[in-house]
């Protein structure tokens, strides 16, 4: 697969799905299948943008530590709860609540790194993996203990207006989700490419020891990477909490896995790859659901994971080269 592969792949699936819808609708004598498919793609884009935000955390942490932070889904959950409480209990305006939820999640991420990963910096990867899974289970149970198992409603603190653009239905919440995701990605790109901390992150990812010899504090850089990745996951958590009007302590499990799949699909360790992987995964999912049925939603993500790992472990954008020179 080359550079253009992801796009052409999505187009091919869209085409097939479009054909299926038109034929089905023609039987019913309705028509307009193409529009339905575009409607689905918009929904896929919204979901996919939240997967992308989650995937970024996985991929950045993997970049600096070669570690899959399996507690990442729980940080997303923590961010959603923080956002919910800040909006309902503290009655903060939405943007302030969003930013504060991101800060809180960033702190959770830094603590997770400090407690679960830093002491194992020189241990085997298996030990770190077990620690990651343990941390994930711990945070889920902590969430259950604090918030209880029931689902809480998360109504957007602003009016959600539905409208049509070019015959496609959408609403202000969808557009806000896309805008938040886009702003985060642009901000992250700037941070990584231009700022000193971003350069430190890239240096640590490319050669940790050489980075230390430059006077970069490797520990601080790793903590910072967790903070940023966790903040992005929190933004996704808050948006998804509102999109589904639901926040629960176990809400991080599936999106956590989806974000991981998206990161692998884009090429683990590759930042633009995680963005693309999230969007592509979101769209494939809705198309798959449209073609088959919604029971297949989660299976599709894992089928993609298996296919990528089998046929292109470096992902869509990753270079099919060894991990390190």
């Amino acid at each position: 697969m080359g550079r253009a592969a992801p796009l052409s792949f999505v187009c091919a699936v869209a085409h097939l799905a479009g054909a299926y819808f038109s034929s089905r609708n023609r039987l019913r004598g309705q028509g307009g299948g193409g529009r339905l498919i575009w409607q689905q793609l918009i929904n896929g884009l919204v979901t996919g943008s939240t997967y992308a935000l989650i995937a970024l955390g996985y991929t950045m942490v993997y970049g600096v530590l070669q570690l899959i932070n399996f507690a990442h889904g729980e940080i997303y959950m923590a961010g959603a709860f923080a956002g919910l409480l800040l909006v309902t209990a503290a009655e903060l305006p939405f943007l302030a609540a969003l930013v504060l939820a991101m800060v809180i999640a960033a702190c959770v991420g830094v603590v997770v790194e400090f407690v679960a990963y830093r002491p194992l910096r020189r241990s085997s990867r298996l030990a770190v993996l077990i620690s990651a899974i343990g941390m994930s289970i711990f945070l889920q149970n902590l969430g259950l203990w604090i918030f209880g198992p029931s689902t809480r409603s998360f109504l957007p603190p602003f009016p959600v207006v539905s409208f049509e653009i070019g015959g496609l239905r959408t609403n202000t919440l969808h557009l806000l989700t896309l805008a938040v995701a886009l702003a985060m990605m642009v901000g992250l790109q700037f941070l990584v490419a231009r700022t000193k901390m971003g350069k430190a992150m890239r240096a640590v990812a490319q050669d940790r020891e050489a980075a230390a010899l430059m006077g970069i504090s490797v520990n601080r850089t790793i903590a910072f990477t967790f903070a940023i990745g966790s903040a992005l996951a929190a933004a996704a958590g808050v948006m998804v909490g509102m999109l589904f009007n639901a926040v629960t302590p176990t809400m991080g499990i599936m999106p956590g896995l989806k974000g991981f799949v998206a990161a692998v699909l884009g090429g683990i360790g590759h930042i633009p790859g995680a963005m693309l992987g999230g969007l592509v995964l979101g769209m494939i999912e809705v198309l798959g659901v449209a073609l088959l049925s919604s029971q297949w939603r989660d299976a599709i993500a894992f089928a993609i994971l298996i296919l990528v790992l089998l046929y292109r472990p470096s992902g869509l954008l990753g270079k099919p080269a060894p991990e390190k020179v």
Partner: protein
Amino acid sequence: MLVIDGVVTHYGPIEALKGVSLEVRQGEIVTLIGANGAGKTTLLRTISGLIRPTHGRITYEGRDLFSMPPEQIVAAGVAHVPEGRRVFPLMSVAENLELGAFARRDPAGVREDMERVFRLFPRLAERKTQAAGTLSGGEQQMLAIGRALMARPRLLLLDEPSMGLAPVIVENIFQVIREINAAGTTILLVEQNAHMALATAHRGYVMETGRIVLSDSADRLLKNEAVRKAYLGG
């Protein structure tokens, strides 16, 4: 300037340094020669804080380096050009050099030093925007040295700068090492190329399996019978 006293360093159960003592004085070029596996790289990594020694003392300008993390050692004025160059392959030449100045807070001085590096290595100036991973071996070595100079070190640790390079390039690199030293930077040079190293240095140490077995002025080491046999090909 740098005093190393009875340093012992382990890799797990392996004792790589078995009590090394050595001194580098202000303004000198001191070379450390020895066969593969003698522990030269381990000693430099111990000095710059990449590995913790188990025993001994390392003092630099009167300060104890023993328990400092690498970033503080760099800030104290010690820069290390590691074995195998270790440039950041995906970053440009200019970005690699900027990273060398990571701990500095004087943008004007940094810009000045970047110009100085480009004067020392005009090849790098021509390749400012090229990814470091695509440079030739010699250019990568120049970049690794230039990157270390960007920290404006008072002590420069060089680990086998001649490794894998053509004789002309080696000649060029050693010329630059002399220039850097003449400009006031003290140098500890680890080399396999004992001839070049001893011809460049003021003093030298010979290391064998984790111990210093000989130390003298570079001239006398060049004439030393045992050194000639073992390291200078007879």
